[in-house]
């Protein structure tokens, strides 16, 4: 297939075929990462700009490495959160970026819809690196890539996402993506963080994590933001850990070798315990490597063209 999309804003309106195409394109990209010389001339002279309105060294670095391995010039613009409300408007920031003639713009922003907002202004491609509670498509793609490496096709696989679903762009993007690949997706979490209406996305929702663990092929605990407890959505982190915290013992209920993923960074002892995070079930470090491969694939597709000339 030919890549024709201008932007990647989310997985809500991306087809299964497109998702599979991105995942296929990421395979040779991953091989490059294991070479001794990790540098391709492919995108020499191309400009990749990362525009981050929220601190996320991990995601930004992942995109920057991806761009650099492909030979592109990467620049990063970090805008302090406080200036979102007071200083320059997003419109003016984006116009400034546009004037710098980038080939692709990668943005993280605390407002849902911000990526679509700038994509409507820019003629060049926009990759959403997370917008508010809406979507985080590259995270979901790297999760799917990791799952597929271990279990092949995802059709019929049972995948549980646990925790603060309400505020999670990772959960939304994964639901949209995994469902398109035919997986069975279950959201599990406390009532204050998991509105039952979310089942209209096509997922199963439950408050009772233990009841759905049997037979699970993969479990993904989400990072629990400490402010949720401070804002009264949870009584204590201790109780959250008791009911939803994942550890080796709890994972025995699945009755199989269940993969454990985490979008990072982890709160050890809250949503996941070290015995599990560092166990053979954990693919958390692989996710980080695959994240670079997925982001290479996307930058390549948006800036470079067809997938055939990668070698």
């Amino acid at each position, binding site marked *: 297939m030919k890549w024709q999309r201008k932007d990647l804003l989310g997985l809500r309106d991306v087809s299964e075929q497109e998702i599979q195409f991105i995942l296929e394109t990421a395979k040779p990209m991953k091989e490059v990462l294991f070479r001794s010389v990790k540098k391709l001339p492919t995108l020499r002279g191309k400009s990749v700009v990362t525009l981050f309105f929220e601190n996320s060294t991990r995601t930004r670095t992942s995109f920057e490495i991806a761009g650099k391995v492909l030979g592109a010039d990467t620049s990063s613009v970090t805008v302090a959160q406080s200036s979102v409300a007071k200083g320059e*408007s*997003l419109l003016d920031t984006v116009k400034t970026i546009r004037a710098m003639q980038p080939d692709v713009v990668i943005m993280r922003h*605390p*407002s*849902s*819809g911000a990526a679509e907002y700038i994509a409507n202004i820019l003629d060049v491609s926009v990759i959403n690196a997370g*917008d508010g*509670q809406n979507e985080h498509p590259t995270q979901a793609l790297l999760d799917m890539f990791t799952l597929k490496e271990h279990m092949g096709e995802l059709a019929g696989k049972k995948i549980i996402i646990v925790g603060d679903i309400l505020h999670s*762009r990772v959960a939304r993007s994964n639901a949209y993506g995994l469902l398109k690949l035919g997986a069975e997706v279950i959201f599990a979490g406390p009532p204050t963080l998991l509105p039952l*209406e979310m089942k209209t996305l096509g997922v199963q929702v439950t408050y009772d994590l233990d009841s759905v663990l049997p037979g699970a092929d993969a479990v993904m605990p989400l990072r629990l933001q400490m402010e949720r407890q401070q804002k009264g959505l949870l009584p204590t982190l201790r109780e959250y850990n008791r009911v939803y915290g994942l550890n080796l013992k709890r994972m025995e209920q699945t009755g199989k070798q269940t993969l454990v993923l985490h979008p990072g960074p982890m709160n050890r002892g809250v949503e996941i315990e070290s015995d599990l995070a560092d166990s053979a079930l954990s693919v958390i470090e692989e996710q980080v490597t695959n994240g670079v491969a997925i982001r290479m694939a996307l930058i390549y597709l948006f800036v470079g063209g067809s997938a055939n000339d990668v070698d």
Partner: protein
Amino acid sequence: MWIKNVHLVDPAQGISGIRNVLVQDGVIQAISTDLDTGEQLSDEQALDGTGKYLFPGLIDVHTHLREPGLEEKEDIASGSAAAIRGGFTGIMAMPNTQPVIDQRALVEFVKHQGERAGLARVYPIAAVTKGQRGEELTEMVDLRAGGAVALSDDGRPIMNAEVMRLALEYAKLPDLIVITHSEDANLALDGCMHWGETSLALGLKGIPSSAEAVMVARDMLLAAQTGGKLHVAHVSAWESVEIIRQAKRQGIDVTAEVNPHHLIFSDEDVTLNSTALKVNPPLRSQEDCEALLQGALDGTIDFLATDHAPHTWEEKAQPMPEAPFGILGLETALPAVWQYLVQPGRLSVEKMVEMWSALPARRFHLPGGSLKVGEAADMVLFDPLAKERVSRDNLASKASNTPFLDQELRGLPVMTWVAGGLKQKDRRIL
């Protein structure tokens, strides 16, 4: 001047039919069914109303004119020009300006600015509490003496129930109605659209219907307890309609309004970046739209009102969570209600006119609302076939934050008179 052969809709007189209307010295002189009466006059003195409607000038109980202090969005002159273009001859101006209209001098300023503009009649609403802080009551007696026609902290809910109780009690002294913006600030926290399937799918923070309904219920109980007069602004949720219906059955002195956008749009129309549809209270579900219309038809909801809320283009050109709440209303509300509700037969023209003129005039003791002989000739000639594309260039308002921008509306006021003076003709302010 005779307006001949026009379809007069005047619910206060029980009239809906072809009439000739004689206006002289700014006052309605005669209404006749005898189509010959007008024949004696020369054409210069007669206006042919064939195929058009004549309504009493509409009265809008809920507008934000932004002056003083927020003139980059709107001012009293531009807001009253927008009113005239929209068929409104009287508008009530909310006090959430900078400074807040919480003293007599400020009430008089708003009134004078309205008179200076010389277009629609501008009626100031004063704040319930000083600075709209929800803490101390304003000098309600003095505010009334200065010309305030009602009291409201609109835009800011009065979260302290005891303050609301005291307001309803004390407002009995100047005999003013308290207009409530019923919203629980904690339940609504940070939301930017209706809480429901759409908000959850889009990852936009939701404002649940309960944020409105719990406060409507609270305010009904306080109105019952105090015997104060209450008006509920911008009802949006079916639960609120139900609570108000019950309250009216119990004889509580309450009225309520609905904004056209809550009848016409639902949360399903909201997308990630549709800031023109970002409004508080938010556009709710289809069922809510249906319940609001039922409420209007059975009299639970008394008035149509625009909640005209201008914002600058720059403010609205932001991602949804950051853009301010508010939809422009004055210039599009009547054609929109006509096109979306009256034409499809969901609301009669008589009911529409009653909800937008006779009933608000009666409730707030304002002039107009009917074209009885002897009344001031505040009136609108409405052409159901006139068409106009809504654009930044033709809006009289300073702002353009309307979901109808660049769309064609059909059914427009083509002439507007205040006290017999022609203020708008063929969509142009005179």
